[in-house]
């Protein structure tokens, strides 16, 4: 995925998202704000993970997109079950938790951590390979060498 020419647009998008999320908070539209928050984080991670302006599709799919879907589902399901049992003891639990909070534990917390950490470890070369790093160090050395000569 070539992002090089799109980074300015993506940064403008993140800025607009910050503004909309803040307004969502003012207006009490917290679920929309949280979902847009996931999009905001996804855009930042996509730019950060890109190498020479190119984001690897595999890395974007897993862990990034899988994580984003998990979190969006988490907030929607939390809200759904929160509203379903407003003012009453829930008629069932998930792993002993209030069904609304269970999604915070299962998808936001455990699912989020496992997806991002394991995906990051598993596909670390798609984020920064030995070759990328060694080339970077070599080029820095060459630039420094040229400066010393001149």
């Amino acid at each position, binding site marked *: 995925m070539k992002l090089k020419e799109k980074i300015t647009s993506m940064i403008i998008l993140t*800025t607009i998202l910050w503004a909309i999320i803040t307004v969502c908070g003012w207006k009490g539209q917290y679920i929309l704000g949280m979902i847009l928050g996931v999009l905001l984080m996804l855009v930042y991670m996509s730019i950060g993970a890109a190498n020479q302006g190119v984001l690897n599709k595999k890395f974007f799919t897993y862990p990034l997109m899988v994580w984003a879907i998990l979190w969006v589902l988490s907030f929607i399901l939390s809200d759904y079950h*929160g509203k379903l049992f407003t003012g009453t*003891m829930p008629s069932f639990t998930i792993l002993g938790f209030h069904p609304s909070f269970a999604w915070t534990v299962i998808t936001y917390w455990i699912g989020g951590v496992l997806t991002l*950490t394991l995906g990051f470890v598993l596909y670390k070369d798609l984020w920064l390979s030995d070759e990328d790093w060694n080339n970077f160090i070599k080029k820095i050395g060459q630039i420094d060498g040229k400066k010393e000569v001149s």
Partner: protein
Amino acid sequence: MDGKTKMLITLFSFGMLVISFIIGWWAKKKATTAQAYFGSTGLFGPFVVGFSSMAAVASAFALVGVPGIIYSTGNAMTFWMLSSGAFPMAYIILGKKIRAMAEVGPVASLGDISDLRFNNNRGIKVLMSIIIFIGCIAYLASQIKAGSELFGHLLGLNPILAGFLIFGVLTIYTAISGEVGGALTQAFQGFVMVVAGFIMIIAFFKVTGGFKSVLEVVSTAGTVTSGEIVKEFSSGFLDAWGIMPGSVAMTWMLIPILGTVGQPQVLTRMYALKDPRDMPKMGLYASLSHMVVGFMAVVVAYGALFLVGRGLIPPLSNPDTAIFAFADYLGLYAQLFVYAAILAAAMSSASMFLSLSAGIISRDLPSALGFEVEPEKQIRNSKITIFILGILSIIFSLTSDSMVAILGTFGWGTLMSATFPVFVIGLLWDRASSQGVLSGLIVSLILNVISLLLERTGFKWPGGMPWYVNVITASILVTVIVSLFTKGATEDDLDEKVKMVIDL
């Protein structure tokens, strides 16, 4: 609590203090260059850096204040404490770029990275240093106050004496070993917090029988009273949002997650890692250890709710005592680890913020103002500054309650509003201009101060949202909009090596 228990808690906690001092003393031999002393740049592996990052992020507030908030208002705050995924996210966004900056030039502090990125722009460095300094001092004062009052009360000592005993030792080892000792002692303290976390989590399940029992108790207990103290329970307490407005839950999800990438204690640790290819492993260690500590904060709050709802202990007059009430009910083994964990959390954050503040005063600000100082002299100046700042902070924290409360307004959000324009936008976007970032920082400083004044008047922001969300958004908006129309430190004015970092 009987005298024998107090003595054992004291011995256990001070044992941790002595080990921290020994580690700091040992580490001083490695703190020989400015890069090592101020930043432990490129010195450690993923385990040490991961644990030290977690420990510096999890402050005394996380173990004392957070359970208190959950006890009072339900689950909204769990979004903050269960934000363990923030570490790998921060490293994915910025890890390789921050670490790569340490190859572009000598990097010992965040100010050095700002210099490299924005061509030694003095305005950016001064403003960023001032805002970070305010945030650091606020954190430092609250850690000292929490730790000193806790142990002063426990031992029947004057809090100032307890403060000098605990944080005096911390000041000495931080001064002699700088960030080398800082990283190693924080990793050790993080380990203590994780051990305490496991013990408290197991104890929670043994005492309550699990989350279902807590949910039943909280949903059905109704109102529990003891004298004038009343505790209202309801089923809404334990749904995802608790009894706070949904916008607060939204903030407590967004700000800790994205704020982690903007915290100096996380940013500085990115360049402390020896090999940047170990960043994913570092994310694993930091987030797994944070999971244990974060879950501990949640279960002790649940434990206190269970005990009060069941009538096993009276309602708490001060919600911040939730962790102690639960530990006291469990007995000596829990008390030993809870007090040690709180001390570890206070010390790890305090040492980080003490060395950061001293680095700003003795190194970053003078250089931003045009005073060039030799590296050896920088280290000597910093050691003196750490001693002076350490002593002043102890006295100030424990004698000026109102000022500590005022400063307490600053913290996580303040630090984020200063670092986001410089590092996140600056290192992700080659069009982020020096004028844009400078404008963003000016807005951040002014709005932080105005928000402080408004908070003192009881002003309520729309939606009940914490003030810092508005400040962060404003500083980002201004940074990006001004950058679109200005060109300082971009295009031809952007250093070739820095451009390579942004592209990496």
